[in-house]
């Protein structure tokens, strides 16, 4: 027999590695979207282009009877974009159709990630824990990368696997196995880079709303500015001033496509890497530990 008290108990544990401490931050960031009211619904809406392709796939596989003559034949008006045997079937809904979903996800989550902590004074909590500013930054980046990748890598991946499983034989797999993994790898790179840009902007801004406005201004503004430059300079590469455009060009090159605006992928890669490097350097300055603790 014993009487147990609920007094203070010591705790003993093996400290986790610096790497493992990144994960709680990333998970918290990933879940930020779904903590929001209507967050889950918004996320599903962001999957709309991929879901459209999925419906098309089901129709073509004959699982959905749309119209008797629609099955299995006729010319496809949009070229290879709507042909499940083409890698473009998996890339196009993201690189071309998902600009708005990309804006929604980054504006609601990635670009607020650090700015909201700064506004709430929460940086003081992080800095006074056994964690370095870099681990904090990487955690925030990793969380928003996972969110973007869930929408723009995992979803097309599911689409592809579905198409493989729906095909009557292995022909679909044989036709796509060479290219689709490269498309997915390219998309993963795109998500990682965009998350890096957004989180860096977030580190610079004083409040989350300010960060969101700057981000929208940069991403949407550079879209128009790139077009203006293209007319002025008669150079295609200028559209790559927009990071999403530049990223798209790199993914297309990586997956072996010839895009509508043809220009050197190296120019695109160089531009987007340069922008990322500059932002990252500024973010590093802004995340110095001292700044966070109130005087």
């Amino acid at each position, binding site marked *: 027999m014993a009487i147990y008290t*609920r007094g*203070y*108990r*010591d*705790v003993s*544990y*093996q*400290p*986790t590695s*610096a790497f*493992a*401490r990144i994960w*709680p*931050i990333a998970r*918290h960031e990933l879940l*930020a979207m779904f*903590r929001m009211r209507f967050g889950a619904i918004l996320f599903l809406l962001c999957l709309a282009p991929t879901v459209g392709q999925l419906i098309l796939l089901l129709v073509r596989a004959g699982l959905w009877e749309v119209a008797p003559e629609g099955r299995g034949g006729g010319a496809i008006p949009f070229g290879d974009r709507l042909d499940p045997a083409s890698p473009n079937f998996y890339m196009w809904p993201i690189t071309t159709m998902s600009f708005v979903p990309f804006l929604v996800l980054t504006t609601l989550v990635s670009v607020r990630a650090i700015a*909201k*902590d700064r506004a*709430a*004074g*929460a*940086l*003081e*909590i*992080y*800095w*006074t*824990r*056994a*964690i*370095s500013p870099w681990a904090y930054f990487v955690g925030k980046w990793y969380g928003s990368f996972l969110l973007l990748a869930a929408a723009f890598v995992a979803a097309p991946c599911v689409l592809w696997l579905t198409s493989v499983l729906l095909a009557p034989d292995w022909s679909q797999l044989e036709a796509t196995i060479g290219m689709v993994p490269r498309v997915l790898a390219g998309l993963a790179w795109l998500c990682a880079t965009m998350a890096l840009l957004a989180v860096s902007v977030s580190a610079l801004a004083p409040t989350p709303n300010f960060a969101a406005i700057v981000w929208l201004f940069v991403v949407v503004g550079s879209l128009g500015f790139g077009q203006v430059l293209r007319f002025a300079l008669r150079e295609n590469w200028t559209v790559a001033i927009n990071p999403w455009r530049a990223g798209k060009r790199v993914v297309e090159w990586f997956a072996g496509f010839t895009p509508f605006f043809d220009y050197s992928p190296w120019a695109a890669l160089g531009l987007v890497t340069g922008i990322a490097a500059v932002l990252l350097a500024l973010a590093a300055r802004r995340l110095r*530990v*001292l700044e966070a*603790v*109130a*005087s």
Partner: protein
Amino acid sequence: MSVRLRGLTIAYGSVVAVDDATFELPKGAVGLLGRNGAGKTSILRALLGLVRPTRGSMQILDLPPDADPREIRRRVGYMPERDCFIPGLNGFECVALAGQLSGMPERQAFRRAHEVLWLVGLEEQRYRAVAGYSTGMRQKVKFGTALVHDPDVLFLDEPTNGLDPRGRVEMLDLVQLMARDLGKSVVLSSHILQDVERTCSDVVLMEGGRVLAAGPVSDLTKNARRTFHVGVEGCDAQALALRLRGDGVVAASVGERGLLQLDVVEGFEASTVFAAVSAAGGVVRRLVEHRRSLEDVFLGAVAAGSGAPAAETV
């Protein structure tokens, strides 16, 4: 010894925030006192490994002087003064996440977060969003956050700020529990000197970046001249004052609120007062040696240290 500073100097550019600070903090609760801008925050920052001292050395616990700041922060818990919470979390998540950031594995952090929240008395409200908490509950969450990774040293910056009387007593009880019963070192920074007097055995007084005084409260508040205040009932205080002179009592007078003031020297015996009152047919209601309050010590030290009168008289 929990913390030892030797000639610690911290300068931000040309601004010297801490100038040649030397003191040792013993185990138990220690008050860190000073006006705003006296250098308290800079010392806390240095002890947390957030700034590198310009000169001098410091040692925390048994850690080597060149210890990784992250290792220091794993052994130290810090409760910030201002409200700072990671947005969008409930009380439990807040404390658990802080534990994980300090290097606790997830399961340990979760278990510990529940325990700590029970200890600070937030068991009922732990699943509610922190954004909806009252000031008292916020202070308790901050305290829990500082305690979750079982640190050996706790830095508490204004823990009673904005609390109502009951909240203050609860917070001070927690501080005492830490320092007395659990053997942790607590560094308490507070503007409310009675809170420090009540919980701390030692204090460090700072002003303008320099340490004005450091040592046990009882030493600092000791008077050079011993004075006793005696409250009597049922006999004439004035007559008593006359009778008590001699026997170690150099001067006796009746002060405010009818209290008898006895200035005494070696050889004074309290029993003679009891005997005299008893003989006069009265009773003693109070017989207390007058000690300076920490406020007197503080105001005096600040006035001496800055060369200006501590309190402007209006």
